[in-house]
């Protein structure tokens, strides 16, 4: 049976009735569509689309479908929304959106046949999309973001502490998302962008007043709270994709823009917090700034400056003490530096989460003041002396082995900051040798040689008691060391005082009975003596070095001696003599009187035994300052460095054959950096030397290029 053709007007009329009923339902009527009605409406569309031309009305129906929405929205929906305000408007919007979705669902069911063939054939948007787009273009466009404006007012209200309807906002914002139909463009352009801008304005305003009124910790606390609240906001009603942008905006306004004013606030800024050990505030500062790119840089800089200042202060105090000739105890300085180090290491780990930026700041700060010379001693020497003292029976206080190890570990950390590591090594070595010779080290390391020496001494004593003819005349104890195991010590040809000659002789005889093939070389410079001085007031026992003793004993035979006489009789050199005489006549204990009275010893001086000398104590130790050691150590290290630089240059050039000047210098510095920081001038000098010795040559064309000569 042939189907009857439905004319457009006729068919549309019928559809219109259905649509009107739908609108009534949306407006609240309790009517419903039953299946029969639905089928009729569907079939009408179907028929009109499958009729033969010119009666296939697919296009027209598609257009009318769209028009239905537009008409409804402009006549009913928009006015309904527009006539409300604020929150109520938003509520209306949410309601109308819900309605609209319903309308789209129903209408697209009726018109579904179009979806099946027509739209694909013509590459047109699907019915669903058409419906939703209508809402968007009309409502959103015509509204000109009034709704966005309303939302923002709500948000700002909440920021000021007022309660708002979060669920409502969530619903409204869901519209923005849903309308995008998979894209976020509606949400981002129509809501998010203005929201971010508004946020920026809001916080910029707040920040400008807070920064003036609040202290740094208070400001930071507020900032932290604001950030937390904004994050909560996202959780409650904003779309999650807004979180990163929102946080960045707030950070920018509160923390980045005012970073300098905040950190540099006098009396409460970063410097003050460090000064006052405000650990919590500093931790907060770290938390706030560490997500911001380069945010921590200024904090690290202030940290570094602060540590440097504290370190320099310690150095300066020590330097002042030394130059005023007050008692300068390098031990104290080193201990304080260790404490400083511990303190700020704790900061780095507790407040700054071990961030590399702060480790670096601390390292650079320490490198600055740990390389200063104090009281004439390079820091390398001070550190070596400190170690020496610790290891000498645990230092001035008895320390347990654990405590010693602990401290030494900390010293090693400080050593990392010192550029002249080779200088430290040399000083340490010399002191180690001395320690082993004269005292038992706290670790009781048994050096075979010393044990042998002790055995030797015991045998000597036995020999003496068994040989009544062997009279050393004095109490003598001798340490015999094997050459080669120990650093070389210079010992001049001291004219041994007669009192000692016999003792040495007897020992030699004893030693010859033990081993005929060994040669003994006496190092008097390392010996020590106990003399009894018969002063007018009382007898005093003096512990002195052998050299000092030798000089003092000269005064047993003459009351007055000139410098040159002493020199001749003792056979000591100028350098030694000046030092020795100084220790006996110009220092704490004036055993000898010097003419003329002055602070230094000169070759024209005359010396006399001082009978009036006395002291509270019955036994005194007259120290011999070992100043020269430093000079010699520095000289030795300089020499070693010259060789090290030469070796490095040759090594590098041998492998590279041809190399530019700057590269050579930088590789050289890198190779040597483990032990010391070579001076550029020193490297140049060594290069010149190597050129003169035909190891290298300068290129003829390019003066900055060097060639290795095999």
């Amino acid at each position, binding site marked *: 049976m042939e189907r009857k053709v439905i004319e457009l007007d006729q068919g549309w009329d019928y559809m219109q009735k259905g649509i009107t009923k739908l609108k009534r339902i949306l407006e609240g009527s309790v009517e419903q569509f039953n299946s029969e009605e639905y089928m009729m409406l569907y079939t009408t569309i179907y028929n009109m689309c499958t009729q033969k031309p010119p009666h296939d009305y697919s296009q027209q129906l598609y257009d009318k479908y769209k028009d239905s929405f537009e008409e409804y929205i402009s006549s009913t929906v928009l006015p309904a929304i527009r006539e409300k305000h604020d929150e109520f408007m938003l509520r209306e919007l949410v309601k109308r959106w819900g309605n609209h979705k319903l309308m789209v669902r129903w209408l697209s069911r009726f018109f579904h046949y179009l979806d099946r063939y027509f739209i694909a054939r013509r590459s047109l948007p699907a019915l669903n999309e058409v419906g939703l787009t209508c809402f968007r273009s009309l409502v959103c466009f015509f509204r000109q973001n009034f709704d966005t404006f309303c939302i923002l007012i709500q948000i700002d209200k909440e920021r000021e502490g007022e309660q708002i309807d979060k669920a409502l906002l969530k619903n409204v914002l869901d519209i923005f998302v849903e309308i995008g139909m998979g894209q976020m463009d509606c949400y981002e352009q129509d809501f998010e962008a203005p929201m971010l801008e508004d946020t920026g304005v809001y916080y910029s305003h707040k920040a400008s007043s807070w920064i003036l009124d609040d202290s740094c910790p208070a400001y930071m606390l507020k900032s932290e709270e604001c950030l937390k609240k904004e994050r909560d906001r996202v959780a409650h009603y904003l779309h999650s994709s807004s979180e990163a942008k929102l946080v960045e905006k707030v950070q920018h306004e509160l923390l980045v823009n005012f970073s300098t004013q905040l950190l540099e606030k006098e009396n409460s800024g970063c410097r003050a917090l460090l000064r006052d050990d405000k650990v919590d505030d500093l931790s907060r500062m770290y938390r706030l700034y560490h997500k911001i790119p380069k945010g921590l840089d200024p904090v690290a800089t202030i940290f570094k400056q602060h540590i440097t200042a504290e370190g320099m202060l310690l150095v300066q105090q020590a330097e002042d003490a030394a130059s005023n000739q007050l008692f300068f105890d390098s031990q104290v300085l080193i201990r304080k530096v260790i404490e400083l180090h511990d303190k700020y290491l704790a900061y780095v780990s507790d407040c700054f989460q071990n961030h590399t930026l702060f480790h670096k700041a601390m390292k650079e700060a320490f490198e600055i003041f740990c390389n200063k010379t104090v009281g004439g001693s390079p820091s390398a020497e001070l550190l070596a002396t400190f170690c020496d003292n610790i290891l000498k029976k645990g230092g001035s206080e008895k320390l347990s082995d654990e405590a010693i190890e602990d401290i030494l570990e900390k010293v090693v950390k400080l050593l990392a900051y010192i550029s002249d590591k080779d200088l430290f090594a040399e000083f340490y070595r010399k002191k180690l040798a001395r320690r082993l010779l004269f005292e038992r080290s706290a670790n009781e390391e048994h050096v075979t040689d010393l044990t042998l020496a002790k055995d030797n001494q015991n045998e000597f004593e036995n020999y003496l008691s068994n040989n009544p003819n062997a009279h050393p005349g004095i109490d003598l104890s001798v340490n015999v060391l094997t050459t080669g195991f120990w650093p070389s010590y210079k010992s001049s040809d001291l004219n041994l005082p007669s009192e000692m000659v016999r003792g040495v002789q007897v020992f030699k005889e004893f030693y010859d009975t033990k081993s005929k093939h060994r040669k003994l070389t006496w190092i008097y410079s390392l010996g020590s003596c106990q003399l009894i001085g018969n002063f007018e007031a009382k007898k005093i026992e003096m512990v002195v070095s052998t050299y000092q003793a030798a000089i003092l004993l000269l005064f047993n035979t003459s009351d007055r001696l000139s410098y040159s006489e002493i020199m001749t009789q003792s056979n000591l050199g100028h350098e030694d003599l000046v030092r020795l005489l100084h220790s006996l006549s110009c220092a704490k204990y004036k055993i000898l009187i010097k003419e003329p009275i002055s602070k230094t010893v000169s070759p024209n001086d005359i010396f006399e035994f001082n009978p009036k000398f006395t002291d509270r104590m019955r036994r005194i130790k007259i120290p011999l300052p070992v100043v020269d050691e430093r000079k010699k150590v520095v000289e030795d290290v300089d020499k070693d460095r010259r060789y090290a630089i030469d070796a490095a240059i040759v090594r590098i050039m041998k492998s590279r054959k041809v190399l530019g*000047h*700057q590269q050579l*210098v930088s590789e050289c510095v890198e190779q040597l950096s483990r032990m010391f920081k070579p001076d*550029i*001038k020193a490297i*140049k*000098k060594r290069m*010149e030397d190597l*050129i*003169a010795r035909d190891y290298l040559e*300068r290129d003829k064309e390019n*003066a*900055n*290029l*060097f060639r290795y000569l095999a």
Partner: protein
Amino acid sequence: MERIDNVFYSYANKSSGLIDPEGIEALCSDLEVDHTDVRILMLAWKMKSEKQGYFTLEEWRRGLKALRADNVHKLKKALPELEKEVKRPTNFVDFYSYAFQYCLTGNEKEKQKSIDIESICQLLDLALGFQFRSQVDYFIDYLKIQSDYKVINLDQWMGFYRFCNEINFPGLSNYDPELAWPLILDNFVEWLREKQT
């Protein structure tokens, strides 16, 4: 050729067969040139003379032939042209380098490699004075007061010439001690800069 030889023998020492310092002095007075004049040094360069103060027959021949002179009069006339030739940049580097090596003393076995400060000052004045008067004067002042170096070697000598050519004087704005300038020049520049403040 014969004429050249004859002129040679008129100045040469009879026993050694070389023109020795005395002979050179005589030659200079005939040329009406002071024997410390740079042109004598230029003549030596032209001859590729090896030993300062002495000319061999071979060297003499070489020089005079190149200058197209077979008597003293012609030789004298050739001097201005020789001067011009030396001053050409391509030749000058060679001449400058030659001047240094010519002044080194010692024989085959113990060839010296550097020249003492005082002689260097004279040599600088002679070889570079006309071209870089102010640099030379300042450098000579510096050499006399510094104590790091007692002698100057060829590398340093050539370095100074490069310095004069490349570095703005007295501004010194383009001197970079991080480059491969000899250390003595680094020190010289430091000294100059200190003076200028």
